[in-house]
């Protein structure tokens, strides 16, 4: 089995490699053709390429319309228009290639469990780069900083911040900020100075680098990359505090690094001799302004976004897009104002998530989540792959053993020293100190990634003559950290026995007590008369609830959002889903009523299997007698369906026919919408007038089944009597759906057509069945006439059953399109029949009050 699988995987890999080679050869040969045709290669302009996520070395300049000869001798049938589509085509092709590579990476889980995906992608990138190198003899595709910073990075940062667990983040904000700001400055300063000291000591031979350039290099190499870190830590599942520390640090650290880089870059441009105390002070001031300005700009955009989503009710289809557009604008605006773009988009995502999620439609929230993951994951894949592809290039490789090895060493060592130093300081103030083991993992998790490379590639060769050395060193650091540290991270975490994330089931009692603990702590702080963390938390919560939510949230979203209740709701939904899927797996899911309204009885007669699905419930229930324990889902179900009982054991005692029973009942009573409604295309709505139809149809069926049962009892009196109905033959007349047309079917004369026309397919099946009273689906939406655990229809009991009129007994008026006229609005005009009147009012009553006045339970009997 295993070998089979492996064989097929191997076969697939071979095919895939072939395909990749074909794609690349194709794209390069396309280019070759066009070059021959006469376009002029204008060489590199790596900063002006705009629309591409990755760069092509050929410039489109001058060749966009040069391929078609201006003078033609004959009419061409088709022409080769490579240059028209070259850039977008290559982009699309590369995206496809990258994602196919990810597919290959994920094929074998034995590999990904050892080597993290990011490392694998880089290695695949080496291979691809090699193929391109072989074809072109030069690296034509590489990661260009502009593309990286404008088209690949924003969505990753936005995704990370939008999905940030806010509470955890803000409760550890102090530690995160210390590590991100001071830690980064520490790394930059120490690595830079140590390298410079070694250079002065003669460890690197002769290089044309001054102390400022070393500091600049130190700044760019200290960018701990969130992309790489998340990619690795997601697979390791460390405990949440450690996770948020590493994750939050790497996210904010990027912003800080870029700011720091810019400051040092300006210093380098200024030149050593002209730097005095005032300039240094200005540099520090600029650092603060850029970092905090970017953050505040992001918060501003978050407010804007939240306000926007307050009023997007009527454009639900595109409201999800606002998150992306406004987020991207936050990034670009910050870039325009030379504030920190990364910090801007980070804080935009973190701050808006709560309000946006509350304001938008649930479907839009899901859309945002999925689209964001798609974009982030997609560009992450491309980044890593291109980090690999970029490496296969002789131009950038400058080897200086001393410089490279010392950089690796210092980056590693100063990260460890910094982490321990700052954590030691933090632990003096933290309630729960960060453990030594966690500190080890934190310092080991300092993976460098594409941000560092992007910054290195941005260096100006005029100012920094050793740019290529810096790029190659950065690449080596990236490969070293992502691949080697990435691979060893998991064993390290296991070996150190780092506290893993406890995967626990959601429990109401835990959430309840957490809430209680918060109150207790706040109260005790009050009693102690000290202003502590809880005081701040509570003060903020109150402020947020009273003012911010009021401003940024829809009034509708503000209500009904108690956290505990939503947990409760979620748990119940989970149970219901489990219940249904388990029931379906078992092949028997019979619904029935019980006396107590609105109870779901989770006692399963197939206890053992079900215990897997809902252990905590089963433990409690396993010893119970039938039907003793009910737990109510009143609150959820109440609004829509007043009385549903999902009761299995009650039926299973009776006979073995329940599967079929349930099947037929479902088929009979569930709404099946007509096909042609499904095919309507609309750009702004998903489903049109389906709802109205559904209600109508349900109403009609309800009426019909009522009348059927009524008729049967009228005629035969015995409820268990066969009701064999007219079927098939009457499929003569198709009604235009949803349109009670004016052609007018006469009042009671079209019994047969009625049965056939509205629900043709279903009817032909279920009409052959017979019905007994006593079991089955009882859902008032579908079946209005129900009650009776006593198993007898209301008119047999001496209750206030409706006596049919003479006319009703003579001609049963059950044409669906007639019945439609019985809808509340139309009663007065159309129906003069007292029976129908009474009938409708009964039905309405049930719909409105969710009462259970009269019930007929129906089930087929097979004899």
């Amino acid at each position, binding site marked *: 089995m295993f070998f089979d699988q492996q064989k097929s995987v191997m076969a697939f890999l071979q095919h895939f490699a072939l395909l990749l080679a074909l794609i690349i050869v194709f794209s390069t040969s396309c280019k070759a053709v066009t070059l021959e045709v006469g376009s002029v290669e204008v060489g590199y302009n790596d900063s002006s390429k705009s629309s591409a996520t990755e760069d092509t070395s050929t410039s489109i300049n001058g060749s966009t319309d040069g391929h078609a000869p201006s003078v033609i001798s004959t009419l061409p049938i088709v022409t080769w228009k490579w240059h028209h589509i070259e850039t977008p085509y290559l982009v699309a092709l590369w995206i496809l290639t990258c994602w196919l590579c990810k597919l290959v990476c994920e094929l074998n889980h034995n590999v990904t469990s050892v080597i993290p995906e990011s490392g694998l992608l880089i290695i695949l990138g080496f291979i691809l780069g090699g193929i391109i190198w072989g074809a072109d003899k030069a690296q034509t595709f590489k990661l260009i900083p502009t593309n990286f910073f404008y088209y690949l990075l924003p969505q990753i940062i936005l995704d990370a911040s939008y999905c940030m667990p806010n509470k955890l983040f803000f409760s550890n904000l102090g530690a995160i900020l210390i590590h991100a700001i001071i830690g980064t400055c520490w790394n930059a300063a120490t690595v830079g100075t140590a390298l410079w000291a070694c250079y002065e000591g003669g460890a690197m031979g002769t290089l044309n680098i001054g102390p400022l350039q070393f500091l600049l290099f130190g700044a760019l190499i200290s960018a701990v990359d969130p992309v790489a870190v998340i990619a690795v830590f997601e697979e390791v599942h460390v405990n949440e505090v450690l996770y948020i520390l590493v994750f939050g640090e790497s996210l904010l650290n990027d912003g800080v690094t870029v700011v720091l880089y810019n400051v040092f870059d300006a210093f380098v441009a200024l030149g050593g001799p002209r730097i005095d105390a005032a300039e240094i002070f200005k540099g520090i001031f600029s650092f603060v302004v850029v970092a905090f300005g970017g953050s505040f700009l992001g918060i501003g955009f978050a407010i804007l976004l939240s306000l926007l989503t307050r009023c997007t009710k009527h454009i639900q289809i595109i409201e999800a897009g606002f998150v992306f557009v406004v987020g991207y604008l936050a990034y670009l605006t910050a870039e325009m104002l030379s504030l920190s773009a990364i910090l801007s988009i980070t804080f935009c995502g973190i701050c808006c998530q709560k309000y946006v999620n509350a304001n938008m439609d649930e479907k839009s929230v899901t859309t945002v989540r999925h689209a964001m993951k798609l974009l982030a994951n997609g560009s992450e894949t491309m980044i890593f792959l291109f980090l690999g592809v970029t490496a296969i290039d002789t131009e950038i490789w400058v080897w200086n053993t001393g410089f490279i090895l010392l950089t690796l060493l210092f980056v590693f060592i100063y990260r460890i020293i910094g982490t321990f130093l700052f954590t030691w300081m933090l632990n003096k103030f933290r*309630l729960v100190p960060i453990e030594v083991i966690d500190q080890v993992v934190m310092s080991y998790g300092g993976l460098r990634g594409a941000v560092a490379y992007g910054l290195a590639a941005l260096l100006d060769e005029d100012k920094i003559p050793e740019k290529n050395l810096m790029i190659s060193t950065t690449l080596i650091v990236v490969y070293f950290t992502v691949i080697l540290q990435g691979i060893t991270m998991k064993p390290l975490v296991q070996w150190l026995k780092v506290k893993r994330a406890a995967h626990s089931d959601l429990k109401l009692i835990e959430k*309840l007590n957490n809430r209680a*603990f918060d109150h207790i702590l706040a109260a005790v702080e009050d009693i102690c008369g000290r202003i502590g963390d809880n005081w701040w938390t509570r003060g903020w919560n109150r402020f947020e609830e009273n003012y911010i939510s009021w401003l940024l949230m829809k009034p509708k979203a503000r209500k009904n959002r108690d956290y505990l209740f939503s947990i409760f709701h979620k748990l119940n939904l989970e149970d219901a889903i489990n219940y249904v899927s388990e029931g379906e797996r078992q092949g028997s899911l019979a619904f029935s009523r019980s006396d107590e309204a609105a109870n779901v009885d989770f006692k399963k007669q197939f206890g053992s299997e079900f215990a897997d699905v809902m252990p905590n419930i089963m433990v*409690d229930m396993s010893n119970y007698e039938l039907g003793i324990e009910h737990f109510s889902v009143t609150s959820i179900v109440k609004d829509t369906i007043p009385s549903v009982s999902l009761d299995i054991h009650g039926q299973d005692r009776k006979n073995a026919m329940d599967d079929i029973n349930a099947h037929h009942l479902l088929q009979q009573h569930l709404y099946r919408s007509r096909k042609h409604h499904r095919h309507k295309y609309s750009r702004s709505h998903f489903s049109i007038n389906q709802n109205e139809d559904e209600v109508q149809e349900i109403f009609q069926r309800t009426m019909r089944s009522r009348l059927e049962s009524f008729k049967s009892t009228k005629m035969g009196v015995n409820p268990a009597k066969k009701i064999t109905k007219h079927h098939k033959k009457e499929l003569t007349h198709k009604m235009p759906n949803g349109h009670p047309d004016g052609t007018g079917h006469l009042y009671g004369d079209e019994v047969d057509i009625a049965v056939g026309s509205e629900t043709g397919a279903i009817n032909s099946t279920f009409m052959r069945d017979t019905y007994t009273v006593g079991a089955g689906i009882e859902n008032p939406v579908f079946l209005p006439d129900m009650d009776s655990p006593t198993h007898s229809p209301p008119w047999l009991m001496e209750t206030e059953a409706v006596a049919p009129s003479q006319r009703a007994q003579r001609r049963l008026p059950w044409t669906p399109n007639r019945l439609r006229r019985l809808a509340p609005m139309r009663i007065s005009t159309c129906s003069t029949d007292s029976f129908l009147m009474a009938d409708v009012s009964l039905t309405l009553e049930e719909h409105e009050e969710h009462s259970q006045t009269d019930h007929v339970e129906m089930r087929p009997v097979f004899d």
Partner: protein
Amino acid sequence: MGSTSSTLLKIPNVEVLMQETGFSPAHIIRLHDRFKALDKEGRGHLCPQDFGAIKELAMNPIGDRIIGAFFSPGKETVDFHTFVKILAHFRPVDKDRPKEPNSPEPINSRSNKLKFAFQLYDQDKDGKISRDELLKVLRSMLGMQVTEEQLESIADRTIQEADLDRDEAISFEEFRKSLEKVNIDHKMSIRFLR
């Protein structure tokens, strides 16, 4: 630091208190100052009204329960020793302190913290959280945001989650078990009491 020792000397049995609670002298002094500030009439003990005067506490949905926790049954007052001992529940657990093998369980141990939380629910002190008791807490904490029926079903579900012996109530043992995965040391500790 002369004032420190002189304040300490005014408190009777301060050594025993420090031994039992693990508070440092600085903590004791701070709490003593607070105690005196709350005890406006200088009687040397506090009564529920003194706690009620704390404005923020009055707004706390379970504030009266927490006040109630300071008063042992039948007593109308709380003296400084009891006051400190109650607050000692919220001292973070210190791992560095060597454990003496035969010393009694410290007040800030996990199970004592849990006991404190448990008794806030268990107002009739029968060792069990009944459905009604839980419902009352829920009502005060969730307030107007959910309907009574929803509250009841939440209470039912909560009890059912924890209830192992199926007596429709949560005993302390069940309470402790159901919160096994919660980091109580973290959740029931206040930083400045360390």
